[in-house]
């Protein structure tokens, strides 16, 4: 298959985001230390007799997995938002070509399953000379998939902006591009936020599949823990709660805050 170039984000991450990365890693190790401190009295024997022992033994792995899941979700969100914006706007373009390309993207990624797309990107693309590490392949697949759903949300929101806004911008002699960029899209963003809240939770859960191409996310770690401990309830019960907490404590409140902030001047208080 000739020479392959493998894409890894690690070096990029270190150079461009040095300070952010160290804060992030700080948080991660703080959580581990906290966990260790809480469980300091717990004896860990060969087998796992209770939940505290389970946590003392596998807590670090769960924390590592949770953070990989978070990273994958965050990067996938970036991909999804970019794709959704491009193709959602493309869906309402006056150019038939752009509309067709957008429709094709949306139909393809909505119409086939995420796990198949993931395997295509990871196992099939190398045959076409595109080789991705599991890590970028994971979030790119999830991002492309959810981006297709997002594109329809973006289109719907653009079309939900009252027609009078278009007419007023047109009457001020704004070009089509300017109307979209300055008048229609900013208002569409406010309309589309609640639907994005749903999509982002869906996306987080979608990242559980990246473990299948050996990204060491929460799902991957839990399967390893299970095969070492056979503690099914503890393992899968814990990750269930972790997934829920990420959605409930990170995604939902962030979206709420964003909604409040963006609609601040649009609603009477």
């Amino acid at each position, binding site marked *: 298959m000739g020479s392959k170039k493998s894409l890894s984000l690690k070096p990029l991450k270190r150079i461009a985001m040095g300070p952010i990365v160290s804060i992030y890693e700080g948080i991660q190790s703080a959580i581990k230390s906290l966990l260790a401190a809480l469980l300091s009295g717990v004896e860990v024997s060969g087998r796992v007799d209770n939940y505290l022992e389970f946590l003392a033994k596998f807590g670090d792995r769960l924390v590592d997995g949770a953070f990989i899941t978070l990273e994958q979700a965050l990067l996938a969100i970036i991909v999804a938002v970019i794709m959704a914006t491009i193709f959602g706007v493309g869906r309402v373009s006056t150019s038939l070509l752009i509309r067709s390309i957008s429709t094709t993207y949306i139909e393809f990624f909505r119409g086939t399953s995420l796990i198949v797309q993931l395997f295509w990107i990871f196992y099939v693309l190398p045959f076409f000379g595109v080789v991705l590490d599991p890590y970028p392949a994971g979030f790119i697949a999830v991002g492309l998939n959810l981006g297709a759903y997002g594109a329809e949300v973006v289109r719907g929101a653009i079309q939900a902006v*009252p027609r*009078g*806004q278009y*007419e*007023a911008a047109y009457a001020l*002699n704004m070009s089509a591009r300017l109307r979209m960029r300055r008048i229609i899209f900013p208002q569409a963003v406010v309309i589309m936020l609640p639907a994005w809240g749903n999509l982002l939770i869906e996306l987080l859960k979608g990242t559980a599949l990246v473990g299948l191409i050996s990204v060491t996310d929460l799902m991957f770690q839990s399967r390893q823990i299970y095969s070492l401990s056979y503690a099914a309830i503890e393992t899968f019960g814990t990750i269930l709660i972790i997934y829920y907490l990420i959605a409930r404590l990170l995604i939902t409140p962030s979206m709420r805050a964003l909604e409040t902030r963006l609609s601040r*001047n*649009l609603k009477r208080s």
Partner: protein
Amino acid sequence: MEDMSQYPLELNGDDVPMVRFMNVSKRYGDLTVLDALNLDIQQSEMVTVIGPSGSGKTTVLRMLMTLEKINEGVIYVDGKPLTHMEKNGVLVPASDSYIRSVKGDIGMCFQHFNLFPHMTALQNCIEAPIHVLKMNKKEAIERAEDMLEMVGLADKKDQHPIRLSGGQQQRVAIARALCMRPKVMLLDEVTSALDPEVIGEVTNVIKKLVAEHNLTMLMVTHQMGFARDISDRVCFFFDGKIEEQGTPTALFDNPQRERTQQFLSAVKSAD
């Protein structure tokens, strides 16, 4: 196909009207909304269009703003064709970029104001001057502040539309349109969506505009008293045609056509 050679490529001479509708028809399928309309509006003239709903009066304004495509005829603005452009010596339907180059002379205010809700009053007013006319920001702000002052809203410039009353929003919309320095101003039922007690503040601004600015205006309204006060000419539309037109005094006090009489007496009894 319509014979386009009957339409001049541009209007020349001493008395070129600011706006000319020449033979303009508008149809939606089988329904004819406007039937071969001919209407000239002179520089600085204030023309009011009245008529029952469905008579095509709002369509006249929307066609002039090119929000509606016309099926036949040509509209000229300041001597230049608006809906068409010259190609090989005849007029062909205008491209979007050509239309943009001509319709910059036209401003419009709407029944429902249509202010941009995510921008303050001032931002509404400077948006197009900065991004369309490429004015520098400082100049655009000065002009916008002048216009907001003119409509009596200098103190509301940093408010978002949601914090303004309907009358205030409509005045901002008028200021916003004026910031583009149009030659022709279109007012489409600008008081129809307002509470009765704030109509006066908007009509006063329009009166001031007529008195102080050299604007050509075309207005659709249901307020007959207001139309009589400020118009140079009133056109009564009925069934896609100008049924009757004349000075306000002539049309309101001495209407000649039966339909005009019926319409005016119906409006009067409703008041």
